[in-house]
């Protein structure tokens, strides 16, 4: 390793065009993930998690665009690439799995064909090599009796198995980074834990970097080594996982943690917080959490909060909680 992080995002800004005006939807998002690292990106619905991931993949929906910042994959700023060059990196450097495993697979193709499709095209495998690779991938993600299941269709698999197959699809060309956008939200608790263990094993064994998006902090508490909390399109806190779980400093982070009984700190609970996150087309000036914040003070409504803390734990807040020793 050259010491440079596998992926480095700096001041990412995603904007939407509506009625001739541009609205920022995601702003000032910066993070780094090392090989083998697992960054958990958390926040309520609509805070911009998926758009951050989509920007990283170069798959923003039509009408949205990256409007500033840098996305470096192994040192290369992908925003400078042509669409075709960037497409060639997808699958090879970055893979992705999404929320709904039931729909992520093409219903009318046997899974082995889907699993190796990208590898087949990239490395020009013949049929025998492709089947062998498919088997290898299915075994890697823990599909039992994989050899007998190569010719099965997606509907013959359970939800959890389909998510494993979807992970195999994403890994076909050996990407260095896996973007997992709420991959377990549609699954039951036991299956959620299994999928997480699988991702954890992959990063430990193969040095796969993982961007894990979720709105359930308890799910990632065990595995994440970094946590990034977003609210209304902005990062409100990012920290090493150990520090974060010892004591989040942003009131919103506390509220998120408070929703988990086992990790609750008594001060704030999400259920105590009135209201909903603002729409991207009507963000308030100053801190976006201010209208709902129980600790709001006068400058919160006027000025964007500066970062408080150090490299290891940073909260964007005018009145953060004190840092816990940890």
């Amino acid at each position, binding site marked *: 390793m050259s010491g440079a992080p596998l992926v480095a995002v700096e001041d990412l800004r995603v904007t939407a065009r509506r009625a001739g005006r541009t609205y920022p939807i995601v702003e000032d998002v910066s993070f780094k993930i090392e090989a083998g690292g697992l960054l958990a990106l958390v926040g309520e619905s609509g805070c911009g998690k998926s758009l951050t991931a989509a920007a990283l993949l170069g798959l923003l929906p039509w009408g949205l665009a990256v409007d500033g910042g840098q996305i470096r994959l192994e040192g290369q700023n992908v925003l400078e690439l042509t669409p075709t060059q960037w497409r060639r990196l997808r699958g090879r450097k970055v893979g992705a799995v999404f929320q709904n495993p039931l729909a992520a697979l*093409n219903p009318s193709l046997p899974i082995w064909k889907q699993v190796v499709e990208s590898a087949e095209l990239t490395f020009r495998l013949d049929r025998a090599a492709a089947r062998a690779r498919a088997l290898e991938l299915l075994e890697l993600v823990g599909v039992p009796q994989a050899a007998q299941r190569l010719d099965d269709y997606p509907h013959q698999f359970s939800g959890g198995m389909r998510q494993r197959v979807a992970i195999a699809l994403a890994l076909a060309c050996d990407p260095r980074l896996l*973007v997992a956008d709420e991959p377990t939200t549609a699954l039951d608790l036991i299956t959620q834990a299994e999928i997480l263990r699988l991702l954890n094993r992959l990063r430990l064994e193969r040095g796969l970097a993982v961007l894990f998006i979720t709105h359930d902090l308890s799910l990632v508490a065990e595995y994440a080594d970094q946590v990034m909390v977003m609210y209304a399109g902005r990062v409100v806190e990012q920290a090493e996982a150990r520090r974060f779980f010892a004591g989040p400093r942003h009131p919103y982070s506390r509220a998120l943690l408070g929703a988990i009984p086992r990790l609750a700190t008594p001060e704030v609970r999400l259920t105590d917080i009135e209201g909903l996150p603002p729409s991207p087309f009507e963000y308030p000036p100053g801190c976006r959490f201010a209208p709902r914040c129980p600790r709001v003070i006068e400058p919160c409504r006027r000025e964007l909060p500066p970062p408080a803390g150090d490299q290891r734990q940073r909260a964007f807040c005018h009145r953060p909680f004190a840092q816990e020793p940890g």
Partner: protein
Amino acid sequence: MWAMIVRRLSVSAISLVLLVTLVFFMIHATPGGPAYSILGSHASPQAVAVLNRQMGLDRPLPEQYLIWWEHLFEGRLGYSYIQHTAVSHLIGVYLERTLLLDLAALALAIAVALVVGLLQGYLADRIGGRIIGFLQIVFYAMPVFFTGILLIYGFSMRLDWLPPGGLGQGLASHARHLVLPVLTLALPIAAGFSRYFGHQAREEYRQDYVRTARARGLSEWRIATHHVLRNAVRPFITLVGMMIPALFVGGVLTESVFNYPGLGWLLWRSALDQDYPTLSAITLLIGVLTILGNLIADLLNSILDVRVRYE
């Protein structure tokens, strides 16, 4: 799969029997009986009596019904007293021309629909997709007479590139004569097909597996041809099977606009001449082709999709 095919075949067989029976009763229900419809309403009673005996029309109805079937199996479709030939011979000649026109138009419409539909599905609500949607409505609503005359005016009269109608001699000339009728017939069908298929394609483009495919770095071409097409084409095949009768109807109009002597033209003529044996034979034929079209579409579907259960 085999059970399904057997079941599907028996449905077609039952439809066929119903069709043949229906046409039989249609003939017998004409005022004055079949003899009048065959000879014309001004026939003399003697001629009617002769014909009735000759054709066995004086026998009881169930017996006639059996004879009707027997004749069908032997390919005897009756005699046209107006054209003075056996109906089977007449139909043979005209059917070939019609099949050429209709199948060429069908193939063109399907090809256009697949390309335009995939593009439309990909573009969705973007400006290009909306323009395609608008054009589909315009072309779909354009009557065959209007399109035909417009094309004749443009390509035959103004530009003098193509013949305005009729039948050519020899292959090259025949092909040249077919261009405008095929275009005329294909245009509204292509518009309807592509609208339907475009809608299917658009639904497929919304599916997560398309996003998964993009996230794996597959090209849009690959996604369109190997993923979207495969899923969107199945309901489309059913539609194509169902549209076969409409194709014939469009063909009838097209043939009359271009003075193209095909089955539609024959149908038109025999309706004017009250040539009932020919009319009923054409009715039978169109019915049979419709049943066949639907059968082929369904069988094709079941081959494409192993999971389809016939229910």
